[in-house]
């Protein structure tokens, strides 16, 4: 479906954590891409590897213990995993920027907003004068909808509310006009009314500036709200990928189906929520068979011993489940697995 350029392409990425209790493949051979100006969501529960994926792209996996142990991360065709430290620093913040979950702690508490904004400019655009940088910073703060932007430059992070801080984070991330913005749970720590503002802002910036956004979240609502395409991760692997509308209408993987139905819907009251039995696996605990098999009610022998591939079930839809092998199984996702 996508004719535009793939600005970011991840191929067979594997990120492993080397701990005292063994090697944990937090991200296990995942492949996906992000096209120009696209908003893609990576959704999953805790420990599924979504954050490690984003940190891997940024080259910020805490090392030790983490390390990229395989695969490629192609940005405009350049493999980021092979870059030197210095080359990678030029990409970071300049071509690919990132914002984080905790606006409360993601800004350095001891430096003014202005200082931190200008720093971001100075790193990549050393030709700019101090005055120009300041103007640019103020302009960005205005762009993200912050009132009294120039006065704000002199404020310290603790003088700002969470929503304002997240706007500052976004302004700071976008100050060097990156082509890709990775947003790791950008609204999780915020109140709903503020979340709505931030999501709207991100969508607007995506439209106005053409910045491609990789949105990492656990909240299906947020995904539905702004993403064009969704990648579902479970236990370090991608288990399903589809355009948002397709995924919500026709979720294929039993996990995706369960997840969607677990969310209490504000629009109608159900007597009883669907719930996936069992617990979210800790990273690295399930290594053979389908990662979801222990919680899957469709699981059969093969699921325990063999890990399914990611089957392409339609042009735009991939699912890692034996039920979709050779696309024999067609189901109506709306009511198949509900109520039982």
């Amino acid at each position: 479906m996508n004719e535009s350029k793939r600005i970011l392409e991840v191929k067979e990425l594997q990120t492993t954590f080397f701990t005292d209790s063994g090697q944990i493949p937090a991200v296990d051979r995942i492949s996906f891409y992000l096209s120009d100006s696209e908003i893609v969501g990576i959704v999953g529960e805790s420990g599924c590897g979504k954050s490690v994926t984003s940190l891997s792209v940024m080259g910020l996996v805490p090392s030790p213990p983490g390390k990229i142990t395989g695969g490629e991360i192609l940005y405009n065709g350049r493999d980021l995993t092979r870059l030197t430290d210095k080359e990678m620093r030029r990409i970071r913040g300049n071509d690919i920027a990132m914002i984080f979950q905790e606006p409360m702690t993601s800004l350095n508490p001891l430096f003014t907003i202005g200082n931190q904004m200008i720093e971001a400019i100075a790193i990549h655009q050393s030709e700019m004068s101090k005055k120009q940088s300041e103007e640019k910073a103020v302009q960005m703060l205005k762009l993200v909808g912050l009132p009294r932007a120039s006065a704000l430059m002199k404020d310290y992070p603790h003088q700002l509310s969470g929503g304002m801080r997240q706007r500052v984070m976004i302004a700071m991330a976008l100050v060097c006009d990156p082509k890709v913005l990775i947003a790791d749970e950008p609204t999780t720590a915020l109140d709903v009314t503020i979340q709505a503002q931030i999501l709207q802002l991100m969508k607007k910036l995506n439209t106005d500036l053409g910045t491609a956004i990789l949105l990492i979240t656990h909240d299906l609502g947020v995904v539905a709200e702004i993403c064009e395409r969704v990648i579902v991760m479970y236990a370090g692997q991608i288990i399903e990928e589809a355009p948002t509308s397709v995924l919500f209408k026709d979720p294929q993987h039993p996990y995706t189906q369960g997840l969607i139905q677990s969310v209490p819907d504000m629009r109608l009251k159900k007597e009883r929520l669907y719930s996936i039995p069992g617990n979210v696996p800790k990273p690295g605990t399930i290594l053979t068979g389908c990662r979801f098999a222990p919680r899957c009610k469709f699981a059969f022998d093969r699921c325990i011993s063999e890990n399914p591939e990611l089957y392409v079930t339609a042009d735009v839809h991939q699912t890692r489940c034996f039920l979709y092998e050779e696309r024999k199984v067609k189901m109506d996702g709306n009511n198949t697995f509900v109520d039982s």
Partner: protein
Amino acid sequence: MATTPLLTVRNLKKHFPVKKGMFGKTVGHVKAVDDISFYVNHGETLGIVGESGCGKSTTGRVLMRLLEPTAGDIQFDGKDLTSLSAEEMRKTRRDIQMVFQDPYASLNPRHTIGKILEEPLIVHGMSDSIERKKKVQDFLEVVGLHAFHAKRYPHQFSGGQRQRIGIARALMTNPKLIIADEPVSALDVSIQAQVLNLMQDLQKEFNLTYIFIAHDLGVVRHISDRVGVMYLGKLVEIAPSEQLYEKPMHPYTQALLSAVPVPDPDFHKERLLIEGDMPDPAAPPLGCAFHTRCPYKMEICTTDIPQLIEQHTGHSVACHLYGSQGDNDIKQMEGSL
């Protein structure tokens, strides 16, 4: 509906002093809970929603008298909780239990689950050790764990399991009312559903009454019979949940509901985006606390505090948009139910 409510709260206030200066002089108050009144009927679930800092958690703690209220009275099961002595309150607490957001922080890491669950029984005078152990095992099964789990320590459990333990502990004393403060917000979506279902099952089984405090509007709707919306220490709207979600009256409630992302990309709703942040609770605006962000702000909103007035049966709202018919007296509300 002639039954008296299990819990009736009238004009409850909790103000925290703000101290400053050389001698710790009190220069102002944060009105964390500012004159709220509501009731909870036997066997129902009252949801309390609001954004961070609105006073919903403080309300929960004041009801338990974990925090001493500044003013107001709390009628629980025929007793006025505010007038009880510390000892009487301690005894009464067996009837009111709390479930917290972070069960890990409230479980002593050095005690086994068995010991943790036994403790409330000892505190409330159940002397027979064998009987206590039996009860612990029963309740572990009730919340979906196993009897052998009693020998384990909190760190050996996942978040969802720990929340089950937290619930089991609350149930040990056969309480009438459980105040659950954000019980599922730390859990993964798939686990959250398990815990919500469990809570509903238990409510039926043990005829429990819940006060369910949360910021997730979807979760609150799912579990609640009636829902109250708080903003900056005030209760701005309270109604049966169906009615509140379908026909929200207060502009804040409307904004709140429209802000929630719905996991359905094809669902297009009319969005009421409100600007700005919640004001500083230490210096709330005059008049209606919401007027700084309200799209329908009128002159009167900046001067007069709107009273919570019943507009439809069981649906009260504190907003100048809806005139002043009716009576904000809580007794009136009870009578009309």
